[in-house]
């Protein structure tokens, strides 16, 4: 069973603003999901390699050639704010 502070931390890492009142019910729901997935542990997987694809595929490789870029206007077109070709975001203070 997840506790409230774990849920609060998960929410922070995901940058989701969760009101305190919702922490308890969320802890229940998330624990339910974890328990449900947990059932997979009952399957014996001795000698079974982790599956990385449903078909027998190997990764596609690409030659080292510049085939993209040069469209900064399109890259920033949907940005909430842009300035002189840069993305503009609320100031990040270190």
């Amino acid at each position, binding site marked *: 069973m997840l506790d409230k502070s774990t849920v609060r*931390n998960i929410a*922070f*890492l995901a*940058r989701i603003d969760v009101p305190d009142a919702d922490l308890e019910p969320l802890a229940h729901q998330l624990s339910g999901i974890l328990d449900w997935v947990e059932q997979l542990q009952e399957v014996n997987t001795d000698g079974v390699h982790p599956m*990385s*694809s449903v078909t027998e*595929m*190997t*990764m*596609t*490789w*690409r*030659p*080292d*050639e*510049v*085939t*993209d*870029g*040069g469209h*900064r206007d399109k*890259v*920033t077109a949907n940005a909430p*704010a842009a*300035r*002189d*070709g*840069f*993305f*503009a*975001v*609320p*100031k*990040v*203070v*270190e």
Partner: protein
Amino acid sequence: MSYIIKGETGDWEVVIGLEVHAQVTSQAKLFSGASATYGGEANDHVSFIDAGFPGMLPVINAYCVEQAVKTGLGLRAQINKRSVFARKNYFYADLPQGYQISQYELPVVGVGEVVLDMPDGSSAVVGIERLHLEQDAGKSMHDQHPSLSLIDLNRSGVALMEIVSMPDMRSPEQAGAYVRKLRSILRYLGTCDGNMDEGSMRCDVNVSVRRPGEGYRTRCEIKNVNSVRFVMQAIEVEAKRHVEVYEGGGKIMQETRLFDPNKGETRSMRSKEHAHDYRYFPDPDLLPLEFDDAFVARIKATLPELPDDKKARFMDVYGLSPYDASVLVVERERAEYFEAVAKGRDGKKAANWVITNLFGMLNKAGLDVTESPVAADQLGQLIDLIEDGTVSGRLAKEVFEIMWEERKDPAVIVEERGMKQVTDSGAIEAACDEVIAANPEKANDIRNGKEKLIAWFIGQVMKQTQGKANPGAVQEILKKKLLG
């Protein structure tokens, strides 16, 4: 050569491990076709993949894989024919995907080693824990606007090799030597340009202290140190801080810190408090990275002679000291210059001229060896002129300086300026007679037993002949004349 911090309660030893981020030399980025070239207009080297647009899929750059394997071979490391890309999740404005594609449990390169050449001629071995491929992040600028940070994603997605050392270093000097050696190996291999000013090589430095013989204590990680000098300084001040905290009865917290070279101190980066909760998991967009032995063998066949092998060969073939050999092999171009000079000549003399005179002048002028005003064969000719007695060793240094200025062959300079060594004993005798005649008292002193004064006479005769007389011949003639 041990580095010990003398605390009030006794001796402390420093333990250092380094994570070096080396930008892979390639045309395009690790998972997109945008240019990996440094600079450019903001966001001009950006594809929709690098900008983290929905639905874009990464496709790996084959050359970046080759470069990583090549580097692994250069570090005499284990090559993993199957490795896995993972997502490292964190939230920052210059990381548009919300995660960095990196490698976690199964990196492409495993355990290897780097041999350090210390200034006293000794060697030390530093273990490499792993090397993995990952994406670089974008660049944030915080000082361009009062309320906004500006983001340039040109670097976003550029291939990096993160090279993680074992905690094997015990002094700032060793850490400096490690970074220099690693840079040298990467440059030989052509897998990273090693340019720390442009950020192609950045270091995270892990520092802790302990009593000699003790197990490891808590370490702190100093992020993004960008020069060899700063790496050494950061270690020095951070180790001192640990000692002061321990001796004051305090505890060191594991944390990320920043080095401020102006203030000469490190300070905590509180913003990274949650940073260690990266929630790595295999990237579902990418299949495992797999290749066969033939792929590795093909890359192995392209490896150049690396600094360690070159150093051993220079010691063996040219009879150089370990130190001279290690100085010459740091850069491939310098080593090639030396070999061009040494070919068919005395290796030690060649090394001496190259290291003391040429490198000295190059450093002073801030020039690369490839920009040297004196070509290798010209320096070789000068050494020949000394060997066959045409110029004295003393005048040769002057000839060298004129060669540097006028870019002429040494024989031409010697001829034009009449700098030929005088071996004609008649001329030398005449000069000796003149000096003796002009200094009768000193000559008498010698005759009366103050034989050491002969050196003064040699100096005078050399002056008289503008350095052109052979000092050995001068000494012989003076002795004959003054002492019989």
